[in-house]
């Protein structure tokens, strides 16, 4: 055969076409008895319906965890889970933590040293000693 092809899989670019929110599920755990859960209980009563309405793509589950601190757990599409303990927080602070989980990607927190991440090679090309002005000794 004169020409054969090498099979591969096209790589996804989330956001170039459709954007898929990476947070797919958030579990809210509260406690009726513990004082540290007062803010969480207030959040569940007053702010959660609006949060759920604004984020229809997140599956929300509320369940009691008696005798423990309140915690929010987010599950992500890459299979990882992030948990934030919201003990002794006000309802507004709990909302901020929920937003934080919603906007996270599920990846581990790491520092990016490079300014640009891309599949495509550089537009202007990498310098080569064989092209351009030749250095003559």
């Amino acid at each position, binding site marked *: 055969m004169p020409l054969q092809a090498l099979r*591969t899989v096209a790589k996804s670019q989330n956001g170039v076409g459709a954007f898929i929110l990476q947070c797919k599920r958030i579990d809210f755990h509260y406690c009726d008895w513990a004082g540290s859960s007062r803010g969480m209980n207030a959040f569940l009563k007053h702010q959660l319906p609006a949060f759920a309405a604004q984020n229809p793509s997140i599956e929300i589950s509320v369940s009691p965890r008696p005798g423990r601190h309140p915690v929010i757990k987010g599950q992500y599409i890459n299979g990882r889970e992030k948990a934030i303990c919201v003990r002794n927080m006000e309802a507004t602070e709990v909302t901020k933590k929920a937003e934080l989980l919603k906007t996270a990607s599920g990846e581990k927190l790491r520092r990016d040293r490079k300014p640009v991440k891309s599949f495509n090679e550089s537009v202007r090309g990498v310098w080569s000693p064989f092209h351009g002005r030749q250095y003559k000794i």
Partner: protein
Amino acid sequence: MKRVRLDRWASQLQPPRNPRLQVQRCALSHETTTLPRRRDLHQQRQYITQTQWQCQRQPVSSKRKASTAAVLQEAGNEGESEASKLPSRNKKSTTPLYAPSHHTAARSAKLAALHARLSLPPKLPLQTLARCLVDPSADPRSDYNNAPFAILGQDLLGYHTTEHLTCHYPRLPMSVLFAAQYAFVGEATLASVRAEWGVEVVAAPGVEVDAGLLQLKRQVPGNSMVEGTGRRVKDMPGVRALGARLGGGRRNAEWNYRRGVSSRVVFDDEFGDLIGGEPYAGAQLSTSASEDGGAVDVEGGDGTTSSLPTLPQSPDDTEATTVSDASASFVRAVAGALYLHVGAAATRTFHRDHILSRQLDLHTMFNFTHPTRDLSRLCAREGFEPPVARLISETGRLSRTPVFVVGVYSGDNLLGEAAGASLNEGRVRAAAAALRSWYLYSPSKGEIVVPSEVEGMAAAGKGKEWKPQVIDVGEIVT
């Protein structure tokens, strides 16, 4: 012979809509089901959380709800009786269910979240999305599984991908076209699309699973042990059904005749692969009467009897499938369901957003065997001067790591240039670069008009005019 009416082709797959029908009928329920709007879904979910809080305010003697699922179930029942938006299912109907019913599907949070995550239009009901998640191995009845949608969706996705590739890269050779088609809409890619959508897979199908999970009968992996023995599944003959008949319909298949590219275009599927015995996983293959013990005898018109194979009626009889097979069927089924409920424009948008947005490096998919020979045949065919390789620059000739930059010229025109560790390697790589630049020719963006943009009644008012697209003379014959 009648003239082919392209403007009516694409839009004639759906029957004309009856505007007097206010509600939609689905295959499953015997009564009508309204389309649940997203607002209603939110109200239902909010109602459920509110009733949960009302339960909490009851006296201490009431039983504390241990799990949310129990609360949701009870609240759902209360909501049903009070709101009476969804009619109760007739308990006397005898059709057995192997997947969650439509009423359960409408209450599933996972399913509603999936619908919103993909930004699917509200015209696509939750019940259809739930049906798209049921693989034929979980429920073999074609009214209840995603097989019909998957067949339609596969054709649609393949059509849109092919027209994109052939209009943007008219000189792409057939083998690379097959590979590019697989890279965009092949089974492996669609399986990773399913994972990127956040759709989880059940351990085993049943009525009690969440309607938002992909339901299939999972194939036992070959490395696992067969129950009761010490041997592995792949070492036991006959445990797994044998695969496809080789040859795929070719007349000289039994002599292992070479499957060339032209014969793949005629006999094989859209990726150039042999069409296996099954159009979809779990489909019943026609076998000879002597092999198939469970055949049904059918009387023909002239009194002759022929035997038909019995179709599986329950998941106990179906063949197990792999997760990647079922994932690909699910994604195809979503495309097919979108076409049926919403229309051709929505399918094109779906394809553009989820398939074409993916990145594919076509220049890495070429595997040349004799690029110098192919390039000289190409120049002879096109009337160019014969290609000549010239050394542009070099360094380190006598060292351990020389670099030779070789350019292939046709007269004064540089066709391709590459660097190599030896003179020969540089020449061969340069010829390959020249061929790649020929094959990956793409017309300017203003000249490219894809057929589905201009055909059909949906595209009538858009203002896009058809321009004849570049059609290449053919591949290089060596």
